[in-house]
């Protein structure tokens, strides 16, 4: 009985581990600009990194979505961009398309909580940025 109880507790402990329970990939489309407007709501975890690293003063969330990991050709439509992901968190293949055409391919190792910021997509009065976080 005690052995079974211990096994059950260990199972629950392991099941609670994110790597086993199954992470999700959060994808956010952010607009960066030097003109007032928009809200930084939903960017609290990454706003400092953006502000410290990029030559823009204002950041606003345009769109967001999530997908399960490991990704199996999962697709997210964010603004005018299509983000297609495939593979495990440690070797995530990401393809960004614009109007059906691939504009960017990349492969990344995305540990829990690490922000992968991909920016420079053209936008009026600034640039668009994709922020990927696995958690």
């Amino acid at each position, binding site marked *: 009985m005690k052995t079974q109880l211990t096994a059950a507790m260990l199972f629950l402990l392991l099941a609670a581990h994110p790597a086993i329970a199954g992470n999700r990939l959060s994808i956010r489309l952010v607009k960066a600009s030097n003109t007032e407007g928009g809200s930084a709501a939903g960017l609290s975890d990454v706003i400092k990194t953006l502000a410290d690293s*990029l030559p823009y003063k204002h950041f606003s969330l345009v769109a967001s979505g999530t997908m399960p990991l490991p990704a199996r050709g999962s697709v997210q439509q964010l603004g005018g961009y299509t983000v297609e992901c495939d593979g495990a968190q440690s070797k995530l293949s990401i393809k960004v398309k614009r*109007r059906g055409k*691939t504009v960017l391919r*990349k492969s990344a*190792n995305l540990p829990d909580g690490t922000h992968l910021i991909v920016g420079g997509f053209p936008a009026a009065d600034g640039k668009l940025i994709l922020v990927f976080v696995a958690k």
Partner: protein
Amino acid sequence: MKVSDNKLDQALARQKPGVEPRPADEFWADFKARARLRTQDAPARPRQALAWVTPLACAAALVLAVGVYMLSPPRDINGDVIKSVEVVASHSAVFIMEDKESKSAIVWIVDMETDPGNGGDT
């Protein structure tokens, strides 16, 4: 039949042992030798005293597992968040920055042009 106290004393006085009792050392040596010839039951294990060992061991194992889980190195940036980048769209430069402190990696594409007809495959 009732025997008077006086007669009883006399009767007991006549009941001398036929054989002199052996010395104590000899008696116990013989006793121990005989005892060794018989299987002796092991003394009962003090189960009550050891009853807490199993749950304590289980708890220790759990604490150890949690400790290893909590203290294991975080699976964070190890310097190779970005494995590869291929910018298909027209652009002039690509900057890659990784900051371990903020656990972030930035890929910045300069002068990217995503309008149709300016590059990209399907």
